């Protein structure tokens, strides 16, 4: 397994954990470790209470769990098989996720005007996986021998 694969796998596993935690806060009454103690990044309740925290009835955190689990699976499958299809799936999911995360970060900054530490940390995991997969894809383009 290459360094890029290991980084992406770790980031995606962290993404699954973080998004599961955020989903737990929303669906069951597990405690939210956030608030003023986290300074400018303690606006989790405001972000979670905003209309941006779900698409219709589906919490954004639930989409995060599925997305990061898919990224983790695609990373592991490509690490083992080195197949182009696995790379394509990984690339597709990571770039789609990165675009969405950049949008969500912009919404926190410009619309909600509050930062949620866990949401930002989750966004970083997706962006890290995107950087990793792009580095792997670029290696495919470079001439060998």
């Amino acid at each position, binding site marked *: 397994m290459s360094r890029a694969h290991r980084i992406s796998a770790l980031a995606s596993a962290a993404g699954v954990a973080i998004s599961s935690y955020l989903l737990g*806060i*929303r669906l069951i*009454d*597990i*405690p*939210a470790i*956030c*608030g*003023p103690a986290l300074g400018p990044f*303690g*606006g*989790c*309740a*405001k*972000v*979670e*209470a*905003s*209309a*941006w925290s*779900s*698409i*219709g009835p589906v919490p*954004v955190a639930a989409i995060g769990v599925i997305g990061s689990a898919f990224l983790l699976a695609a990373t592991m499958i490509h690490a083992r098989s080195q197949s*182009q*299809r696995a*790379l*394509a*799936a990984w*690339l*597709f*999911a*990571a*770039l*789609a*996720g*990165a*675009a*969405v995360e*950049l*949008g*969500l970060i912009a*919404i926190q900054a410009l*619309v909600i005007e*509050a930062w949620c530490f866990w949401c930002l940390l989750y966004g970083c995991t997706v962006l890290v996986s995107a950087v990793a997969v792009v580095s792997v*894809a670029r290696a*495919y*383009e470079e001439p060998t021998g």
Partner: protein
Amino acid sequence: MDLIRRAALSGVVVGVVGVIVLFLANPFSGTPTPSMGGDFTPVAPTLTPSADLATDHGLGAVDAPVVLTVWTDYQCPICGTWGNGVEPALYERYITEGKLRIEHRHYSFLGEESFLAAIGAECAADQEKFWAFHSYLFANQVGENQGAFSPERLRKIAEVSGLDLASWDTCVADPAVRTEVEADAAEATSLGITGTPTLIIGDWMQSGIPASEELYARIDEALGN
């Protein structure tokens, strides 16, 4: 390589479309749905407290040893969970025992209907019916800024809460009441509150709803148990 390039391009396109869908799904960005019809019958709240325990903006004996101040927005879904689930549990466990009083404060920030609901609640307080109106609001939450707390529906909530409608109508039209609600929000901001619900007991402040056992432990600690 074509497969890789197509995947990369598709990923970016799907991501951008995802962001657009998120924007379109946001009720703030579209035209708010008008009132949900004239046959609205408010859902009764789960908790109907004893009249002597529901005084001013609080629930519980005025001399209760522990005061829990709760800042909420009436449109915030987690506040709905608080009002419909946690408050009734605290009522049974502590308030009826005279150990706890919950003091409600408005932190209205989710849009116009949050303000309308809070103004309605303030006018209910003028008639010593704050808690009834407050409980009906949480029991009748539907989305955000989609008409659930339109003036017409709030008037029906006022009616089932037992308010004198003529006085309530006069009160909600008074701009001074809105100023009070806005001042509450400004005070919340000055306290460093960034979301709802925010719970305060003495020096302890928590944003969001803690686990039941953690909340009970916090109250028990304040009680000296």
